[in-house]
């Protein structure tokens, strides 16, 4: 036997999520309609149990399943992040799904499967597993995007996401094929060994790495693979958008960092110029196009594209053995900051959204700050955090990020990052001005879970800024297991 109970124990959080989701399918199928809400509570319970298991696993470093999975600080950091995000996403979805009449328990089950996929991605150390985990993460996302049945936009979003996602999956698979052809292995550790031993056809290896980069670039919505993002974010049910904005990014970056840092550090001289261009394009396009948006969901979509650019920035010095640890830590920290801020801001969007896509324009936010000061202040905090202005965690994230990039010697990119942050201030703060300076009569839908998410995210955005030093130290411990 090449697998044992130890393997199962090492990936206990993932096993819990998968088993729980599978059991929930049956529970949901046999629950009478009156008790359907139990599914939601069970979902949260499952995520909490898995979260406890994940926290319990902190500090363990191990391999499982014949080296196909790796449990290390990196994976446990991301597991905790994605499980926490999952709980927030459930809280956002409960009221919304009921309000728009598609409160089916399968939504939460799909989300659990997606979370399991993301968790697998964060610890996968074999290209085959990475691909399968990516699909396990993505397919439920397509379904969640199309979950609002009968709504043309939602169906369009699901279809678009599915077609383009499948296309991107093809790129990754093709890339894996090339890497396998060049090295004769799919396990990252064997790939490294093969590369260090010298491969016969480095061009194939490079082509493979580039194709994988394209496919994962699609998942994290980096320019020029971002075209799907605004349409999908706009069309999907807002809680699904909130989840996919974070979930897909976590998974995509997990795989990207793991594959490139572990397996392809030697290719960095060839890949860094490409990455440089990718980052610059993402930053510029994301932030400039966001200015032109009138719909808050589209604006946040472009904002999430630009944040993908910032995270990718930390990825640039990945081949530099001296710097990559702090830059990976900076990327993880930024992901955390983005996740918290993003969930909070989507919570505000959910609170204002009405049926038939009403309440989503920027003008609909006029007067929010006067009528509902608490909500206005929360949104203000999120916008500040997105821009990167203290005292918010977004500032800490950007600060650490630029620091890591400068250590890597990419001064030009750091300057570009600061400049585009300034651009972004225009559209983030424009929303703040609309909220507080313009008069209007917005109506919010009261939903205690959404309120809870928004309030706690707002508090966390500020408080975590205060403790950003120990937090970053935690992220720095989240090192990758190298081979």
């Amino acid at each position, binding site marked *: 036997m*090449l697998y044992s109970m130890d393997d199962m124990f090492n990936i206990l959080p993932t096993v819990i999520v998968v088993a729980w989701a599978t059991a929930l399918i049956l529970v949901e199928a046999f629950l009478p309609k009156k008790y359907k809400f139990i599914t939601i509570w069970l979902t949260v319970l499952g995520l909490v149990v898995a979260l406890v298991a994940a926290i319990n696993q902190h500090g363990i470093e191990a391999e499982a399943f014949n080296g196909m999975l790796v449990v290390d600080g990196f994976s446990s950091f991301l597991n905790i992040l994605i499980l926490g995000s999952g709980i927030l996403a459930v809280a956002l979805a409960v009221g919304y799904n009921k309000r728009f009449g598609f409160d089916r328990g399968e939504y939460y089950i799909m989300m659990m499967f997606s979370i399991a996929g993301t968790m697998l991605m964060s610890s996968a150390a074999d290209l085959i597993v990475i691909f399968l985990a990516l699909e396990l993460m993505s397919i439920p996302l397509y379904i969640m995007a199309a979950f609002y049945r009968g709504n043309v936009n939602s169906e369009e979003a699901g279809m678009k996401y599915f077609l383009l996602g499948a296309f991107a999956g093809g790129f990754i698979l093709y890339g894996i094929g090339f890497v396998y052809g060049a090295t004769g292995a799919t396990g990252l550790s064997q790939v490294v060994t093969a590369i260090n031993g010298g491969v016969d056809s480095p061009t194939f290896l490079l082509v493979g790495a580039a194709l994988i980069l394209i496919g994962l670039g699609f998942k994290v919505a980096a320019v020029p693979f971002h075209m799907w993002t605004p349409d999908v974010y706009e069309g999907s049910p807002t809680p699904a958008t909130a989840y996919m904005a974070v979930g897909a990014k976590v998974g995509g970056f997990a795989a990207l960092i793991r594959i490139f840092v572990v397996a392809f550090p030697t290719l960095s001289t060839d890949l860094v110029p490409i990455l440089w261009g990718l980052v610059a394009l993402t930053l510029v396009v994301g932030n400039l196009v966001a200015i032109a948006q009138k719909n808050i969901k589209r604006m946040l979509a472009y904002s999430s594209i630009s944040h993908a650019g910032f995270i990718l920035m930390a990825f640039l010095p990945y081949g530099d053995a001296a710097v990559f640890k702090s830059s990976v830590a900076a990327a993880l920290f930024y992901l955390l900051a983005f996740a918290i801020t993003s969930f909070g801001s989507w919570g505000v969007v959910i609170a204002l959204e009405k049926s038939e896509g009403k309440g989503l324009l920027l003008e609909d936010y006029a007067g929010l700050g006067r009528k509902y000061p608490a909500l206005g202040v929360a949104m203000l905090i999120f916008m500040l955090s997105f821009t990167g202005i203290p005292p918010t965690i977004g500032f800490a994230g950007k600060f650490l990020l630029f620091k890591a990039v400068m250590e890597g010697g990419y001064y030009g990119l750091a300057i570009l990052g600061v400049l585009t942050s300034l651009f972004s201030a225009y559209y983030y703060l424009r929303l703040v001005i609309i909220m507080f300076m313009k008069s209007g009569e917005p109506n919010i839908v009261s939903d205690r879970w959404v309120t809870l998410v928004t309030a706690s995210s707002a508090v966390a955005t500020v408080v975590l800024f205060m403790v950003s030093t120990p937090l970053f130290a935690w992220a720095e411990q989240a090192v990758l297991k190298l081979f």
Partner: protein
Amino acid sequence: METEVIVFLILAFVAIGSAIGMIINKNAVYSALFLILNFATVAIFYLMLGAPFIAMAQVTVYAGAIMVLFLFVIMLLGAEQLKKADKGEWQKPVAILFVVVLIVEAVYLIFGGGGDLLPMINEVSEVGDPISLATKLFKEYFLPFQVTAVLLLAAMVGAIVITKQDKKS
């Protein structure tokens, strides 16, 4: 050795021809038929490489199951005939340009650039017969196998969820 090369060349010709036929055919049903031919040819490639299990799975799953469903959808939608696209004509020259660029790039890479592309791995492993394949799947590749199972379950449940009608209306 010689016969193998001849068979390979014939099959390669059929495979590429059917792929091109699939793309340029205006009738979607004929395109699907060309794709089936292509899958069948690929299955024979697998046979030649000593992997009968994969060859048969290729025919059963792709040529058999998936393409039948494709044909079904095409026929039920009545989408056989490609309508003349009323917009997007500008894409054609652009697409041709990109294709030419890609071909030049590929040719340069293969012949001019590295010149390092030819030696791919040459190990013929014993994955062909069902028993060794099963042993690999259930031992070495146990995890991917299980993940695939979960993936298919999620996809199946999801597909049913987004297509099933609510009973009440």
